[in-house]
């Protein structure tokens, strides 16, 4: 789905979405297609689902977004370790 299609289908909701077709242009992440993984009444519920999905699949491109957001403007930053915190157990 495009962001406009998501907004029409899930109005005024917090959503956990996954970018399935996306590209980086400069410092912007351009998301062409996404799927909705869950809808929630509040943002914390969506973040809870984010954590569950992310913990098993850390490379999936997930976002918690509200469908009132007019444009899907996402910035991108590269960090060498990207919070891949290395822990001595």
């Amino acid at each position, binding site marked *: 789905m495009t962001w406009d299609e998501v907004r029409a289908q899930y109005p005024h909701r917090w959503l956990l979405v996954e970018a399935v077709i996306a590209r980086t242009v400069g410092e912007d992440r351009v998301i062409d297609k996404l799927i909705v993984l869950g809808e929630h009444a509040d943002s914390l519920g969506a973040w809870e689902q984010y954590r569950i999905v992310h913990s098993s699949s850390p490379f999936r491109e997930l976002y918690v977004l509200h469908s009132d957001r007019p444009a899907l403007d996402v910035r991108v930053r590269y960090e*060498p370790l*990207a919070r891949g915190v290395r822990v001595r157990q």
Partner: protein
Amino acid sequence: MTLRLEHGLLFTTVVVYGSNRSISLDTVLVDTGSCGTVLSVERVAEIGLREQPGDVVLTIRGVGGTESVFCKTVERIEAGDMAVERLEIEVGAMDYGIEMDGILGLDFLLAVGAQLDLDRQEMSARPQPLSP
């Protein structure tokens, strides 16, 4: 201030001030390898900092995976006697394999001129006098 060594990493306590409330976060990783300061979405919600529909959303990508966060400006953030006013922080799920309340990143550490004394496991903003 004293740093705590846990899981082989350095942790400290940070106090974050929202519009009217503050919260003390006891498990915050001191990390010169993180550009930004990141705080737990659940913990900052306790002082009313929640994602809003128009917040800036950022994706951070690297060898550890992909993570998304939203940005908030906190009134003040302090660690011991070091403090920064109106710092833009990132807020996210903090899914790093160990429980933590946040990451004190290089943005804060540079702003206060933090000096890390790894021998004593202390952090301060002022130069330490050299031993004779």
